[in-house]
């Protein structure tokens, strides 16, 4: 029995259940799992396909005492939820893991084909004889990662060394193209993107910070900021409501974009907003469980705007 599984099993002394990962026999990659007994935790794994942010389940488990395996970025989501009183810190045991940088499984499958076991060693990702450089299939958020060390952690369960992470973040692909666009081109770009939206709300369901659930303003009929019509302008409006509600709260876990079945690059909007918040207030969401988010602060001497 390895050390990682051992650590999870030990937390059962304190918790009702543990959120972690098991390997999917069909797809060969890690999938989220909920362990209710120590025996179930025998199958727990942690590798570079554990890209999901399990924190999304935490607000819904309010009545239980929960253990959760958390990468550095996941820990920031927990810290933000704690700061927003959405999660009771005393009811969560955070099992921190050091993340090697996650592989974008969809990208990998595009290179190799679906459903085979992916191996990750020595800076190369391989499947059935084919290999590709790790950087090629790394998740966007892992480039220039600043969160190798979980900001909130009760038990450490090993993981990767720091050297294995953080290749530089340079705008590439769609980010590079988007940055070069004029405002009119950007407008057209989003018009095109949102014309594909099917209003499935997977973005919201995958987001750990979207805990309003049934009362979500994206869908509210009163006052009906956006209708439910499958129409680019309405979908765009609905998404902008969600994005603006993420101001100062989004930890950049990319779950919304990963969950989007039609591949709308939502992170372009959120990354921009996060950068503005960081510049104005020096704040990254999930800085710590005690840190008060700037937009949840009433401070008469707020100098972020250069006013006295």
């Amino acid at each position, binding site marked *: 029995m390895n050390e990682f599984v051992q650590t999870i099993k030990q937390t059962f002394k304190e918790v009702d259940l543990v959120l972690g990962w098991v390997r999917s026999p069909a797809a060969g990659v890690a999938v989220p799992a909920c362990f209710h007994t120590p025996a179930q935790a025998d199958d727990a794994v942690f590798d570079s396909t554990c890209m999901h942010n399990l924190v999304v389940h935490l607000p819904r488990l309010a009545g239980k005492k929960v253990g959760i395996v958390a990468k550095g970025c996941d820990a920031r989501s927990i810290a933000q939820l704690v700061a927003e009183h959405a999660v009771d810190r005393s009811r969560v045991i955070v099992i921190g893991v050091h993340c090697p940088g996650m592989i974008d499984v969809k990208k990998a499958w595009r290179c190799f084909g679906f459903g085979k076991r992916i191996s990750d060693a020595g800076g190369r990702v391989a499947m059935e004889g084919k290999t590709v450089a790790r950087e090629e299939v790394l998740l966007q958020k892992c480039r220039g990662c600043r969160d190798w060390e979980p900001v909130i952690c009760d038990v450490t369960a090993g993981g990767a060394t720091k050297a294995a992470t953080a290749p530089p973040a340079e705008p590439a692909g769609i980010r590079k193209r988007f940055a070069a666009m004029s405002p009119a081109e950007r407008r057209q770009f989003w018009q095109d993107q949102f014309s594909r939206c099917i209003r499935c709300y997977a973005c919201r369901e995958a987001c750990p910070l979207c805990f309003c659930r049934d009362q979500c*303003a994206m869908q*509210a009929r009163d006052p009906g900021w956006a209708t439910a019509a499958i129409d680019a302008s309405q979908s765009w409006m609905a998404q902008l409501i969600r994005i603006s509600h993420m101001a100062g709260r989004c930890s950049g876990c990319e779950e919304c974009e990963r969950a989007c079945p039609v591949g709308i690059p939502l992170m372009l909007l959120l990354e921009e907003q996060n950068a503005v918040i960081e510049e104005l207030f020096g704040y990254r969401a999930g800085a710590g469980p005690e840190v008060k988010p700037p937009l949840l*602060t009433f401070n008469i001497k707020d100098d972020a705007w250069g006013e006295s």
Partner: protein
Amino acid sequence: MIGVFICQCGTNISATVDTGKVAQAAAAMRGVADAESIQYACSDPGQAAIAAAIRHKRLDRVVIGACSPRMHEATFRRALDRAGLNPFMLEMVNIREHCSWIHSDVDQATEKAAGLVRKGIARVRHHLPLSAGKTAAVRRALVVGGGIAGIQAALDIAAAGIPVTLVEKSPTIGGNMARLDKTFPTLDCSSCILTPLMVEVKQHENIELMVNSEVDDVHGHVGNFEVDIRRKATCVDEKKCSGCMICQEKCPAKAPDDFNAGMGQSKAISVASPQAVPLVASLRKEHCRRFSGGKCRVCQKLCPAGAVDYGQQDEVVRQSFGAVVAATGYGFYDWTGAYPTYGMGLYPDVITSLQYERLLSASGPTGGHIRRPSDGAEPRQVVFISCIGSRDESVGRPQCCSVGCMYIAKQAILTKEHIPDSQSYIFYIDMRAGGKNYEEFARRAQTRYGTLYIRGRVGKIFPRWGKLVVMGTDTLVGDQVEIEADLVVLATGLTASDGAGGLARKFNISCDENGFMAEGHPKLKPVEAEAAGVFLAGACQGPKDIPATVAQAGAAAAKVIGLLSRGELETSPMVAAVSQSKCSGCFKCRDVCPFGAIEDERPAAGRTAARVLASLCRGCGICSAACPPGVISLSGYTDKQLLAEVVAALR
């Protein structure tokens, strides 16, 4: 059934907006049963027409296109109430300040007015009847500042039987007036008319006097301000000290004399002045030998009452008040940095008018004999220069100090009375003597007391053979003037007092560009601050003389008495409300609420939800902006209403 009434406001609106057309456009909208143009909607016949329409056409909501709601919203709410409608079924659309007054093209202004009214109609459809609540008011007033303004306000409020706490930051009340020798235009002895009031404050059963105290922190709102007052440690037990001044006599540590504007010397432990109220010593640690590392314990050893206690600590007292009067007074402009050609304060015989006032005063450092600071000689030639740090754009202070012309005339008269063979010169810009008997008084300074008035600015002052050469321009003659003076007195302008800005922030009082506190309306609310339940008295609101200060203090007191005499206050119904079944309990609303008006509640087992304390809520709406699902909303300003307005505006 919506009624729309478009006010012509005489020609104020009708000159640039075709009110008939606006009414026509409104009449075509869904749900509008009546739309008319009225000459003066706020007049009796105007209100009667609105009431008649409400009754006859069975209106259930009303849009009035007229002036700013700040002007007449209350008027029209009452009109609706009289006609049997809920007063909050009214929407006022501002087509005067927001339209007719700022545009000249009739067609375009009419179109804009119609658009604004269209928004109002869209919004009023979502109005709901609201009713005002009541909240108990604490029957106690706080007066901050113990100058003549604060004294007068405190006495007037106390006379009505309402308890008052008077907080003064210095060791004695009396403020600047206590430091003046005589007052214009009657030449009454300042302390002779002030000290009886000071003593009355001390003795009044309804007044609690707290000197050496400052407002630390403020919570709450009109009717119930919770104020933390910090009593600063003075190392003297106020209850034991009899004011015998033995400590001051024997104290070996010299210290600047604040009361005498630095003209004399005081001691580290001292009584502010012989007429101080309360007559109690206080110790300034920064000058005391014991606190700068020495072993001196002279005052403690010699005090016959045993009142000296070096271990005294600041004490913070929390009190509740129903209303507050700010009477923080004024300070004098510090000229030394801004007028380099006047010697930057390096020439001892260039002094300020307040310092000169102390030289004139019998309780001052020279016992009422005019002696110049450099060599103690009696000056023969005295030059007064007006408008130092006032009416002077070059130092960024354009406003008039409003008392300078008069107090220099007074000081010139007093100079002649003290030293009959002296000659006074006054460099002035304009004579401003607008008050009752002021012009006659200033004229007397010239005719009976031989003061020479020279219209012009002084360019330079420099010392020569024990005298000060004052070089200036006489703009009436068009010539250079050079006067050899023994003493130069600068009539420094009035500024907001130190710390007034900090206090203003604590009570949500806004300040103007010169740092003076802003009144609610320059004409109609001269003593009310923007924040409800906070009133202004005296020079904290703007430079003014003693009679105006006393009058304003009385007015502020009358407002406080009016507010607190009923025992309870009506609260605005336009407060936040939570739909608890939808609340996720994240309490972002509680985090952002500036008034502490939100608390948690358990509507059902296992879940918490926000609850609004209506008496604390000020209706600012920050919570409703912070609530992600929008389940906390501001009554009268719901998302539905705002969105309806936006949609109508974009149509």
